[in-house]
């Protein structure tokens, strides 16, 4: 039990295939310290939702094991269910019922009742600014309000671990910022462990104490956002070519320059890491000139999680998203 107090979620070597073909999870392992926000970051189809479904007992892995709040998800699913709250990607709100009815039913399923439940429901309605809409059917709620109700429903029974599967997908920027504040309060004030999946880099950067990048069912890298960004050497320089594609000759020419780190080619794009982005640009452009390639644009950026993703997976985040949307889900 001592271990379960400090480690709230432990996934070990999870493998899951769908229909014997699509390998959604390919040996995923990670651990989440109690009371922290941990983000699984990856494009659609990376295996994030599958991971959440296994951890919240909705699905079973082909192999591997996991413990949540100290309980084994396969051997003790009922204890896991009592200890967790979950906000799935698809809203679980009954839109024909009011916000209050949704919350009350959820509480009663977990064995709550009486005045205690009534007060808990009122508290949550108030906390998520739903008091005014409490007795209207959820069908009339805005997307942001429904999400808030979703999260409130996940909290009725005061769970120790909360799963948030892409909580801000489909929300407008204002509602998203609003929700971020609510989520960070959960761990800051309530001490709840939050496992968040997202395909928004800035969301993971903003909210998570630790994050893991998941790609094609595997964990690519794990650490604090600053750690991951810090591992990157200096600034990122993105160069787009008007004509032709960068090849080995280009690489060779660039690698002779001072203060240049990693060089990644990506179709007509070139991503370079440099100690000092701004001072390196003239030298880079001169070197490219000598290879005969025509540069269309140059962009210098401070390291972001996007760069972390690019470095570890060899493709940019947007590309991965598009590729996965085209392929099998």
């Amino acid at each position, binding site marked *: 039990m001592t271990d379960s107090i400090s480690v709230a979620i432990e996934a070990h070597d999870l493998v899951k295939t769908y229909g014997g073909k699509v390998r959604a999870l390919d040996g995923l392992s990670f651990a989440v310290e109690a009371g922290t926000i941990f983000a699984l970051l990856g494009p659609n189809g990376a295996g994030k939702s599958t991971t959440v479904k296994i951890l919240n007992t*909705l699905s079973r892995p082909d192999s591997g094991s996991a413990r949540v709040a100290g309980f084994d998800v396969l051997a003790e699913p009922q204890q896991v269910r009592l200890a967790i709250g*979950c906000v799935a990607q698809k809203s*679980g*709100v*009954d*839109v*024909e019922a009011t916000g209050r009815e949704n919350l009350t039913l959820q509480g009663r399923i*977990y064995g709550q009742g009486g005045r205690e439940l009534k007060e808990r429901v009122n508290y949550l309605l108030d906390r998520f600014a739903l008091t005014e809409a409490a007795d209207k*059917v959820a069908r009339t709620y805005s997307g942001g309000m429904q999400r808030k109700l979703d999260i409130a429903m996940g909290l009725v029974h005061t769970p120790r671990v909360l799963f948030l599967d892409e909580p801000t997908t489909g929300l407008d920027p204002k509602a998203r910022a609003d929700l971020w504040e609510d989520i960070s309060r959960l761990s800051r004030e309530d001490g709840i462990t939050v496992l968040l999946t997202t395909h928004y880099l800035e969301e993971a950067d903003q909210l998570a104490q630790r994050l893991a990048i998941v790609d094609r069912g595997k964990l690519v890298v794990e650490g604090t956002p600053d750690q991951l960004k810090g591992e990157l050497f200096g600034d990122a320089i993105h160069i787009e070519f008007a004509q032709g594609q960068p090849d080995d000759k280009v690489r060779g020419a660039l690698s002779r320059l001072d203060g240049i780190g990693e060089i990644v080619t990506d179709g007509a794009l070139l991503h370079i890491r440099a100690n000092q982005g701004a001072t390196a640009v003239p030298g880079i452009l001169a070197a490219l000139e000598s290879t005969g390639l025509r540069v269309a644009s140059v962009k210098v950026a401070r390291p972001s999680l996007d760069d972390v993703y690019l470095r570890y997976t060899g493709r940019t985040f947007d590309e991965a998203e598009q590729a996965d949307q085209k392929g099998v889900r």
Partner: protein
Amino acid sequence: MTLLTHSLLMMQRHLRNLLRQRWWVVFSLVQPIIWLTLYGQLFKRVVELPGFNANSYISFVTPGVVIMSALFAGGWNGMGMIMDMNQGVMDRLLISPINRAAIILGRVFSMSVTTIIQSLILIVLGFLFGARFAGGIPGIIVMLLCAVLLGAPFAALSSALALAIRKQESVIGASNFILMPLTFLSPVFMAKNVMPDWIRSISRFNPVNWSVEAARAALSDHTDWNFVLLRIGCLLAFAVFSAALATRAFRAYQRSA
């Protein structure tokens, strides 16, 4: 104990949501009137067929329409499951510690309540149209039991089908494909004596037939209770079979998640 509590919680949810849909309420009140008027008038003179053995068609067809309503209420029950699946409500329930069987049983309970209410409306209407039930109150209670015992297993089967297929259109298709023939392969509208032989043979294995025959027998003036109990026994067996199938469908749904 949790099974009952959870089933009642789910029943409460379904009934509340149904009552909130005003058009649903209107249609379920109007539909029995239409059915009784339409079928009562359309087939009025079939009682004159030799061997039909009934004095008034409205007395004959009222229990038939009661049973048919229960069959359809049960048979379309899976549509609600599909809505829950599409909305994500099903997954939320499955992540919660709710008793799995209560998810289906809650629907069966709520369907039973609406079926009983609709049946009582039909009985009153039938009476106003001239139907007489010699079996009296006990006969009517047995008829309600027969209706629920037919609707409940079909509700469970329909839920199982919804869990297996998960597509609204397919479930609609399958329900249509099954419910109408089952109605016409039973003595809902037509006395057994005047049915073609092959239909009469098939109807012996049709739960709709067991339910209608038991209901009519209970409403008659000289009830053969062995005849009634045998059919109620068959309906109970059918209910157990359906419940087992529905539970398996749940496990399959969860495995594929």
